[in-house]
C-alpha cells in the first residue's frame, strides 16, 4: 500500500477490516483453546475424585466382576464387557444393513428424487432423541424379544448364547435398538465414500466387461473400504457412549452372563443409574468407570477419524 493512500477513505476501510480480522483471529484462538482446555478440565475433574480407587485397585478394577456397593467392592468387568458386546452386536447387525442402504443410495437403481428422500429419512434417524429410542424399545422390541427369545431359549438353549430364561430387558434388546441408532452414521459416511469413488474406475470396470454387481463388489467396495471402515469405527464409538436408551432397555445387571437373552449392564448405564445416590468410595469407583469410558470413546473416535483421513487421501490420489 502506498503512503499517499493512507488517509484516503478506502485505506481507512482496509485498515478497519484488517483490525477486525485480527480481533476475529484472537476470538477464534480463544475459542479453540477453550475447547482444548475444557477437555483437559473434564479429564482432570474425573481423575481427581477417581484417584482413591485408581490408586487402590489399579488395573485390577477392570478384571474384577464384583460390583458390590454395599460392601465397597468395585470391579467394572461386567460393565466393560457389556459396553463392548452390546456395541459389537449392534455393529454386526447395522453394518450389512447400513452398507446395503449406502450402496442402494449411491447407485442409480431409483430416480434421484426418491434416493434423496430415502437418504433424508435415514439421516433423520440420527435426529431422534435417545430417550425416544428407549421408549420405542420398551413398546416394540421388548415384547418381540420376550416372545421370540422364549422360543430361542427353548430350542437353542443348549448354546450358551441363547440359554434362558429370556428376559425382555436384555443384551439383545439393547443391541437391536443400538443397531438402529448407529445406522445413520454407517449409512451416511459409507455413502459419501462410495460416491467419492471416481467415475473413471466404474467406467473402466464396465469397459472390460464387468457386470454391475461385479463392479460393486470388486471395484467400488474395495475402493471405498477405508471410508466404510471409518464409518464402522465411528458408529462403534457412538454405540459405546450411548446412555439413555441402553439404560432403559438392558436391564442394568452387574452380573456376567453368556446369554444374550439375559440382562446386562454398560459403563454409561452404570453412571446414569448410580451417580445420583452414590456416596464415598462409590463416587470414586464411578469416576474411574467414567474415565475408562472417556478414554475408550476418545480412542475409538480418534482411530475412526484417522482412518477416515487416510481414506480421503487415498481416493484423492486416484482422482
Amino acid at each position, binding site marked *: 500500500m502506498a503512503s499517499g493512500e493512507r488517509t484516503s477513505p478506502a485505506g481507512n476501510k482496509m485498515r478497519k477490516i484488517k483490525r477486525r480480522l485480527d480481533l476475529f483471529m484472537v476470538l477464534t484462538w480463544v475459542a479453540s483453546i477453550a475447547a482444548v482446555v475444557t477437555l483437559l478440565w473434564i479429564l482432570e475433574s474425573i481423575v481427581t475424585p477417581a484417584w482413591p480407587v485408581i490408586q487402590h485397585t489399579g488395573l485390577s478394577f477392570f478384571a474384577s466382576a*464384583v*460390583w*458390590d*456397593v*454395599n*460392601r465397597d467392592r468395585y470391579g467394572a468387568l461386567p460393565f466393560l464387557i457389556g459396553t463392548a458386546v452390546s456395541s459389537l452386536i449392534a455393529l454386526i447387525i447395522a453394518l450389512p444393513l447400513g452398507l446395503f442402504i449406502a450402496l442402494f443410495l449411491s447407485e442409480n437403481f431409483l430416480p434421484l428424487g426418491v434416493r434423496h428422500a430415502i437418504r433424508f429419512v435415514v439421516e433423520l434417524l440420527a435426529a431422534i432423541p435417545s430417550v425416544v429410542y428407549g421408549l420405542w424399545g*420398551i413398546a416394540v422390541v*421388548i*415384547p418381540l424379544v*420376550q416372545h421370540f427369545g422364549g422360543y430361542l431359549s427353548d430350542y437353542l438353549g443348549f448354546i450358551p448364547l441363547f440359554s*434362558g*430364561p*429370556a*428376559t*425382555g*430387558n436384555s443384551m439383545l434388546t439393547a443391541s437391536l435398538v443400538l443397531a438402529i441408532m448407529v445406522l445413520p452414521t454407517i449409512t451416511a459416511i459409507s455413502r459419501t465414500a462410495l460416491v467419492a469413488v471416481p467415475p473413471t474406475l466404474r467406467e473402466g470396470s464396465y469397459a472390460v466387461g464387468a457386470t454391475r454387481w461385479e463392479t460393486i463388489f470388486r471395484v467400488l467396495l474395495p475402493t471405498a473400504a477405508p471410508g466404510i471402515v471409518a464409518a464402522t469405527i465411528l458408529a462403534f464409538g457412538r454405540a459405546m457412549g450411548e446412555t439413555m436408551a441402553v*439404560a432403559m432397555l438392558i*436391564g*442394568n*445387571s*452387574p*452380573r456376567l452372563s453368556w446369554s444374550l437373552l439375559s*440382562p446386562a449392564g454398560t459403563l454409561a*448405564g452404570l453412571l*446414569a*443409574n*448410580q451417580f*445420583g*445416590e*452414590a*456416596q464415598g468410595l*462409590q463416587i470414586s469407583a464411578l469416576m474411574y468407570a467414567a474415565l475408562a469410558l472417556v478414554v475408550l470413546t476418545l480412542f475409538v473416535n480418534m482411530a475412526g477419524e484417522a482412518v477416515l483421513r487416510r481414506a480421503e487421501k487415498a481416493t484423492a490420489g486416484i482422482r
Partner: protein
Amino acid sequence: MEGKLLPMKTSKVSFLFLGALVTQLVSWSASAATQLQGAGATFPAPLYQRWIAEYSKANPDVQINYQGVGSGAGIKQFTQNLVSFGASDAAMTDKEIAAVKQGVMLIPATAGSIVLAYNLPGVDNLKLSREAYVGIFLGKIAKWNDPAIAKTNEGVNLPNSPITVCTRSDGSGTTFVFTKHLSAISPEFKDKVGEGTSVTWPTGVAGKGNDGVTALIKQNRGAIGYVEYGYAIHNKLPFATLQNKAGEFVTATTASEEAALATTQFPPNLLRAWPSDPDCKECYPIATFTWLLLYQKYDNAQTAEAVKKFVNFGLTDGQKFSEELGYIPLPKAVADKSLEVLKTVQ
C-alpha cells in the same frame, strides 16, 4: 459515521436496560418472603409437595421448595448446608450425623410400606410365604410353579414360566428398608446380599427409581418387584399378600401397616428405628417411616422459625392427606414424639 454512532447508542441503551433489570432484581429479592429449600427422598415427595401447596395457601409470605432428588443426594445436600431441610427414607447413620456441625434432628414425618407387585395375568391374589419371597429375591425360586409358591396358592393356575425379579439400579431408601427386612427374616439373605441402599442382587433386571421398577414389572410378563405401595396403587399393579412373623398372610392396607408401625420401639434419644420384622398377627411385614432432617441449631432464626412452623403443620394437619396419596398417617404416639423433638430445634 453512522456506523460509529450506532454501537454507542445501543451500548448506552443496553446499559440503561441492564441497570433497570438489576434494580428490579434487587427490589424483588428485598421484598421476597422467607425461602425454604428442601431436598431428599423421592418416596414422600408427593406428600411434601401437597403440604407445601396447602401451607402456602395459608402462609403466602413463606416460599418452600422441595426437590425429590433421592435420599442419598438429600443427605449430601443437607450435610453441605445447601438446604434448609433434608429428607431421607433411610434416616441418617451415626457417621452421617456426626458430619453435620449444626447437629441433626431426625423427625419421622410420614410412613409407607413396600409391596411386591407382580405381572402374572390371571393371578389376582398371590400369597407368598416368607421362604417363598426370600427365595425369589435370592434367585433360588426361578419358576412361578415352584412348590414353595404353589403350596400357599392352592387352586391357582401358576404358569411354568420364569420369574423376572425387578430391583433398583440406583441407591435407594426403598432398597434399604426392603433388604433390612429380608436380612431380618433370612440369615442366608443377610450373608449373601446384606442390607443397604444399594446391594448386588443375585438375579433379575434393575431400573432407576420406583417408577423405573414399576415400568419393568409392567413390561415383563412374569415379573415381580418391590415398590412403594403408592406406585402399585397408582399403576393398578396387583401385589402379593405376604406372610408375617406370626405366620399370618396379610395384605398391605392402612390398618395392617399402622399396626406394623405401632410395634416400633424408638431408642430414647433418637427417633430412628425400623419395624424390620413386626411381630403381631395383623401386621403387614414391610412398613417404614420416612424422615425429615432438620438442623439442631439454625444459623438464621427466621429460617428456623419458618421450618418449625411448616413441619409442625405437616405433623398435625398435614397427616390427613396421607391416606389419599398412599401413605400411612403417623401413629399418634410417634407424631407426639416428633412434635416434642421439633420444639427443641433452634
